């Protein structure tokens, strides 16, 4: 009995094995031995578009023996420069890339980057190549959340090397960027807000052409997204100084990776970092700070008022619309303060205040109406207690009359 079972099991195993090899033989014979790479043959962008092992590695897909399988133009893939050239052989060809909607300039861009210079010119073994970021066999397109270069994964991908103190020490590059980024306004917008318009590492440094921006490039780089702020900044006194590289532009008040917000109550402190105790500048900074702080608290008050109105069941679409106006003015303050135009700032601050007062009055009126409802408690309790007292008196009357006693 056990012998029969054994024969059946062996037969089953052989059949299964034959079945598996029959499946891979017809398309990709390499996978009969390279089982660890099977996933790459069926999953990812390359598999999807019919790129097979031999298209990158060469060899003979139909061979039945090890030497025969590896004969011919066989590329191992361990050589980083060779990898770059191999990927580039397809990805720099616009005629091949067009059908997939891909650009073909990445290999050329890579040559101009710091990474490319290290790899291709200095032959630095630590320098990354294509597969360092895009992975090797299972390569997902950037739109796929499993991809290393999906927006929320990019900072982590860069940090694999750039957070490595030992590795970065050789290049005298700090390793705190990822830590700073994930706590920055950009990082919070990306990770918590899932706002893919928020820049990742490649948004400022470039992807394949990664390089740190120069001092004069900073304002232009930030201004690509913060366009109104850039215009206000350029119109103000700081703009002229920044264009001559005597002032680091945005980085003068905000940092690069941390992109710290200058909170409303810290404006004076930030200004005095450069301007010291200059009375004229300090007075101006105080005025800006006062406008921003007041607008900030006005906005909070307005927000609370709309919340109270909504909780009380009032129709708040109009009030929300007014709040949005206040919010727009407030955001305009955020832009205009970069131009140091005090009159315009003052005007915007007054507009926010006016809407705040309007909404607070509406909330107060609603609260007054709800307060009036409580006046009903008087008659309710009077009538209730009177009715209960009357009932009690009547019950006593019944008892005295003996009607309550058992008969």
């Amino acid at each position, binding site marked *: 009995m056990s012998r029969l079972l054994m024969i059946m099991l062996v037969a089953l195993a052989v059949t299964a094995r034959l079945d598996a090899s029959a499946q891979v033989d017809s398309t990709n014979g390499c996978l009969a031995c390279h089982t660890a790479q099977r996933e790459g043959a069926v999953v990812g962008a390359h598999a999807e578009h019919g790129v097979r092992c031999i298209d990158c590695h060469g060899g003979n897909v139909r061979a039945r023996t090890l030497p025969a399988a590896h004969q011919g133009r066989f590329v191992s893939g361990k050589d980083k420069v060779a990898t770059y050239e191999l990927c580039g052989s397809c990805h720099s060809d616009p005629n091949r890339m067009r059908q997939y909607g891909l650009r073909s300039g990445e290999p050329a861009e890579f040559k101009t980057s710091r990474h490319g210079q290290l790899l291709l010119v200095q032959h630095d073994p630590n320098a990354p190549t294509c597969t360092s970021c895009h*992975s090797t066999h299972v390569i997902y397109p950037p739109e796929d959340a499993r991809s*290393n270069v999906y927006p*929320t*994964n990019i*900072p*982590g*991908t860069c*940090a*694999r090397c750039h*957070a*490595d*103190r030992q590795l970065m020490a050789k290049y005298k590059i700090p390793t705190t960027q*990822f*830590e700073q980024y*994930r706590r920055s306004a950009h*990082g919070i917008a990306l*990770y918590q*807000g899932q706002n893919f318009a928020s820049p990742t590492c490649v948004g400022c440094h470039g992807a394949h052409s990664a390089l740190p921006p120069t001092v004069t490039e900073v304002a232009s780089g930030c201004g690509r997204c913060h366009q109104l702020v850039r215009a206000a900044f350029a119109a103000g006194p700081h703009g002229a100084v920044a264009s001559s590289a005597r002032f680091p532009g945005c980085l003068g008040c905000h940092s690069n990776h941390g992109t710290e*917000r*200058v*909170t*409303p109550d810290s404006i004076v402190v930030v200004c005095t970092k450069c301007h010291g105790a200059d009375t004229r500048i300090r007075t101006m900074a105080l005025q800006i700070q006062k406008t921003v702080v007041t607008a*900030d608290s006005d*906005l909070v008050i*307005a*927000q609370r008022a*709309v*919340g109270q109105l*909504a*909780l*009380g*069941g*009032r*129709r*708040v679409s109009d*009030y*929300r619309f007014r*709040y*949005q106006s206040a*919010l727009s003015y407030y*955001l305009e303050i*955020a832009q205009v303060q970069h131009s140091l135009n005090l009159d315009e700032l003052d005007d915007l601050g007054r507009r926010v205040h006016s809407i705040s007062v309007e909404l607070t009055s509406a909330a107060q009126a609603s609260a007054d109406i709800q307060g009036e409802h409580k006046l*009903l*408690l008087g008659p*309710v*309790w009077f009538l*209730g*207690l009177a*009715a*209960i007292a*009357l*009932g009690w*008196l009547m*019950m006593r*009357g*019944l008892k005295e009359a003996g*009607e*309550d006693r*058992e*008969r």
Partner: protein
Amino acid sequence: MGAWNAVREWAGRFWDDLKTSTDASLLGVARFFGLLYGPIDSSLPIDQAWRRALKFRLPAHVSWRHAIGGVTYLLFLLLIVTGVLLSFYYRPSAEEAYQSVQYIVSGVTFGWLIRDLHVWGANLIVITALVHMARVFFDAAYKPPRETNWLAGLLLLFVVFAFGATGYLLPWDQWAYWAVTEGLDVLARVPLVGGASVEVLRGDPVVSGATLSRFFAWHVIILPWVAMSLLMLHFSLVRKHGVAPPIDGPAKGAGVPFFPNHLLRSFMVAVAVLTVTLTAAILMPRPFGDPATPSQVPGTLLSTWIVADVSRALTYYLGPSGLSAFIVFGLALALLPLFDRNPERRLRRRPVVSTLGALFFLGFALAWLAGRQLRSMPPQSGPVALPPPSSAEAPAPPARAPAPAAQPAPPRPDSGSQKRKAP
């Protein structure tokens, strides 16, 4: 003291006059419409029934605690009246429901009071129904021949729960929407019937306008008929079997007249309950959440119904299995009387049942109080999750940052739109 006696004397005279005149005027009105001494009366013995009702007597041991059932019925009537008034203005569609409730509260004269009376009536009826149930349970009034009525009462309690559950969705705000979504998710996990019944109730893959229409139909058409039928059965059986005799033996004596003695007691309890309902409605109006948004989970879920409070507390402290265990415990206890044929009714002689009953009712009350303390359970709590920090000592950070936690509820006025930033 003299003044007090004068008031009492006056009230007594007033009552005598009122009784005489009310009896006379009621009979007069009935006679005017031909109900008495007319063509209808000749075929229906209304006059006879009226006189019998006035002469109806209850056993002598019937006391204040027997008035709770009547108060539950009174709250049911209050819910019908306020519900009908609300339905004049309420619109059961996903587009209009929220705005129509807003209009009821802010545009209709005393609409706010009608609405909050309905909300608080729905809460208090659960309490009075359970207190009534506890009274019957501890009095052992469910024992034969009254076990059918216990079952009818039990079904009525479920109808009350079904009323509350279907009415919970109707305001169509975020709290209503997501509490019902969660509730239906829980119901879907009930073996065998859960999935199918949720499909029927929901009418759509997610809670939507279709669900709102169905819940409205259940709330104002189906359940009222079911409740009325069960109430008729409940009252008929009370009249058929009479009030359960005292615990320590059969009823003695001729008893006390229902009118006015017990009706007066019921009236006083009813006035007290109505005063409490009105006070709660005036002082604690149900707040409005944001309009229901299926794509956005709210930061907090405010409970506005006692049963939701209880289930929230049980889930929070004991987990889903704790909630299930409590429901099974309650069901077992409710069905126990059907198998408890022992005629012994004294509490000390049935310690197990009494202890289990006390545990259930106390547990319900405690869970309710705990649920009120919780007030709101965020669907996803805890600090904002950030991707893991990286350091040279630690292994290389993963290429993919973890999925970020749900965003905390955005501020109400600008929810779903621009986020406020510090300049």
